[in-house]
């Protein structure tokens, strides 16, 4: 399906990002493997994956910093390749440890950025800089690594983007700064029904702020759903069976742990019916909620353990 075909679908207005079988190769390495993702407008989408999973490549494709080898996509209704300039006008982007022009002051950087966008809100910049104590007259080269990230974040939202791409941007921030960012940037964006796509390794933060999640491993997006849906579907089942026979574990169960008296496993399509089907006399079936980190580990480990290129996604739940 081409990007044009995608954009003609009536419900696409609900999505800030839509990709269709997006693929990117670097020589022999397959960085993105037919990624079809959808990020709803107004959502805070956490894209998670281990190092080298292709998260940065995905974001660079969205910005058209690199061209996809195949596939297509739209960003805020614009074709991400052919109409990338228009898309970038509505996008704010902060990458981890993003180098900036060190000879500039923060104010000069903001002024430079202001000249590149049709509209600019200096107050939004100040709202990020002031709480963390960054003086606009400071030179970039005088700032710490975290402060540089904050400065980049501040200028990335000056044009009030409809989509904010944070590529590991929270990495390296101290807890206070991170909290300020979450409060002054992400919460504000969310409140204004603007979209945030965030990648990172700090899953606790992601769990706290994201309402949508996607898991990307070896270039393949093998899970994408709302956080609530994810948590509702992925459960840990514990069956206590003192003296009784080992219970039958579902075929698609993950991280199965058997002991003499109990068996635990994770299911990705949890329903009440499943609990009832596992129930038996002398057994105690218990459903455990999992944290996002646990879910990610349980889902990612089998993918990572598989040798070679990314295997077929075992589970794919449409958002």
């Amino acid at each position, binding site marked *: 399906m081409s990007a044009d075909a995608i954009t003609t679908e009536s419900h696409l207005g609900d999505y800030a990002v839509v990709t269709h079988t997006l693929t990117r190769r670097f020589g022999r390495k397959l960085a993105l493997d037919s990624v079809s993702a959808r990020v709803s407008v107004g959502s805070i989408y956490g894209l998670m994956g281990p190092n080298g999973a292709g998260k940065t490549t995905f974001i660079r494709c969205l910005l058209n*910093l690199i061209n996809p080898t195949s596939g297509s996509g739209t960003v805020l209704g614009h074709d991400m390749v052919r109409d990338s300039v228009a898309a*970038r006008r509505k*996008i704010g982007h902060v990458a981890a440890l993003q180098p900036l*022009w060190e000879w500039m002051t923060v104010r000069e950087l903001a002024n*430079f*950025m202001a*000249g*590149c966008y049709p509209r600019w809100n200096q107050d939004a910049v100040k709202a990020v800089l002031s709480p963390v104590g960054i003086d606009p007259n400071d030179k970039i080269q005088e700032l710490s690594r975290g402060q540089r990230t904050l400065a980049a974040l501040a200028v990335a939202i000056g044009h009030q983007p409809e989509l904010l791409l944070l590529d590991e941007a929270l990495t390296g921030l101290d807890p206070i700064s991170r909290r300020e960012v979450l409060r002054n940037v992400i919460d504000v964006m969310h409140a204004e029904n603007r979209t945030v796509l965030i990648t990172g390794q700090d899953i606790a933060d992601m769990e706290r702020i994201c309402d949508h999640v996607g898991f990307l491993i070896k270039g393949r997006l093998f899970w994408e759903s709302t956080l609530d849906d994810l948590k509702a579907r992925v459960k840990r089942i514990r069956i206590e069976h003192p003296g009784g026979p080992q219970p039958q574990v579902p075929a698609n169960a993950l991280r199965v742990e058997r002991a003499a008296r109990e068996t635990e496993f994770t299911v990705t399509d949890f329903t009440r019916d499943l609990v009832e089907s596992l129930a038996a006399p002398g057994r105690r079936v218990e459903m455990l909620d999992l944290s996002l980190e646990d879910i990610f580990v349980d889902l990612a480990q089998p993918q990572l353990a598989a040798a070679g290129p990314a295997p077929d996604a075992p589970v794919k739940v449409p958002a």
Partner: protein
Amino acid sequence: MRSLIAKEFRQNHLLVWLGFLMSAMIAALYYAWMRTHVETVRDQRDLDEFCGIILLLTTGVVVLVSTAGLFSIETTRGTLPFLLGLPVSRARIWLAKGLAGLAIAISSALLLIVPIAIVLPQVVREIHIWLYLPDIVVGVLLLFSVAFFCTTVFQRPISVLLVTVIMLAVVLIGETAFLSSAGPILGYDDLFDATLISLFLVPAFLLASLFTFSRGELLATRRKWGLAVFGLLALIAFVLLAITGATRWAYRYSRAGVRGVDATSFPPHGAALQFSAYGSPAPFQRDAARGWVKEEGPYRSRHTVMLDLKTARELMVFPLRGWNRQADVAVSPDGRHLVEKNPGWFGMNSERMAIWDLRSRRRIYDGMPARSRNAVLGRGSETSWSPSGDWLVVPILSLGAPVQVPDRPGQMGRPRQRYGLLLMRPDGSRHVELDLWEEPEVFSPGQWSKDKQRWIVGWAWAPDGSALYTLTGGGLVSRVAVPGRETEKVWSGPAPGVVLPAGYLWRFSRLSVSPDGRWLEIPAHASPPYRESPAVSGDAEQLAAPPLPEAAIVVSAGGSRAFTIAARQFPSAIWSPDGRVLYLVDTTDNKLVIYCWRAGDDKAVPVAAPPKTPVVKVEALRSGSLLIWGNDRTYLVDEQGRFTVPRNEQMRSLPEDHELIGVDDQGRLILRSFKPSNQLSACDFSTGKFAKLYP
């Protein structure tokens, strides 16, 4: 866009100041040097050259440094993705960088040039900076484009610097090689062509840079390289094809910069014209660093051209490079070979002769054919090909013990060297030496007879190429059967039958063969022995003296004398194309004296009633008539010796600003105009129509 340009300026402003500092340092050092060495600067040229070279070098360095980092520094410092993430197209980013970089390069160059141009002339003496501006502008543009291309491809500034220098050298060498193989592009000026190619290459490099940046940024290095090389080669190929294609399309009319056309000659068949075409003059306009003062001649380039007169297309264009610009050149009548005779440095014994195969453009002979005999190429005498092009006659000057030739009897004279002839094949094989003298000869009036005057001073080929006629100063005409050195005495002269004063002798310098090969015309002039070296002009006694008698002797190819005519002035001899009529013409002192001799007659008939008109040119037409081109009228002389006027009214008065070069095989007059200068045209004498031939 504006903020992008402003950012580039701010980012690179240090380089501008660096340029300014360099300028100040150079100016200060220059001033200090001039103060202490002002006496060693011999002339203005030294001053300008020194200043020009310094300017070219320093400007190049500043441009290179300021351009090399435009993209590579962004790549090295990792700010490029941030820049590319802005809502600006890559083309705009590229354009902003380019404009800013060019502006920085130009402002840096100005910071170098302006202080030198303004301050130093006040201190030392005037410097002609403007002479170097075209060189600097072209150099800045080419260097900028190459460096800009490299900075989009390479990630490290140092790599950009090194590769730019290498690539620039490759470009310049490639330009030279291209011009060598493809011939002149737009004109007969190699440097002009090279400059034009450079200017065409500038957009090729810039577009390749744009292509690479817009398609390949953030690609893996190898892929980006592939993209860049592909783009660059494709664009350069396109540019060169476009240039050469356009040139070929408008081949003969697109020659630019032809400032001189001379040394014209017709091969025997008269269907083609060979001439030398010159590029623009060396000094003043563009290449002051190399030739502001005329040292190597008035032109920067010279090409030998063979023009097909029927189609007006160039059959051959052959560049004469370097010192060969001053060489004597002769193309073989069959158009297959070209001989260059280069006199080399005066007194340096560096004469060279080269023969080129014009089809393969290979030099098949290069050397000094008579070196082993301790001789050099003769100066001032032309090499000449046999009509078939199989043999070449090379005049050589003996380097053996010079002959002491006294100016007056009984005196020791200054040393004189003697001429001889060498016959050789185009590939340098089969040398046949003619008359290299073994014994020095001492001049004395009593002994100066025809037997002693054996120096070959003139030669002419039989029209069929079967023999070479040689003429000695004493009037001995010999026929040399070719190949071989078997000679046969044809005529031993001189004795035109006119009584000369005591001590006077007849002397000979050239001969001509009739087009049918049946007759030889041998002019002679009387010479007193002490006029061995001509008297200085202004000698009142000599000026007042009556002119010495001169003569024309015509003998048959077998040696029997046909007739001799003596006159007060030396006549020029013009054969009709079929060789049946010889016109002896004297045009001095605004008088026109014509003798007409028909083959087989025993005397020449004076042509009656010559008009009193200054004569511009006399030429035999294909019809056998003689064309007299006067200042205001043209006349024809027919074979019966009658004056007529041309039937075509237009031809009764030929344009004043034209020179008659000759008559081609179709009977057309080949003319060279002076306004516009050096344009060749053909004139059909019967219809009066002019046709532009060249350029």
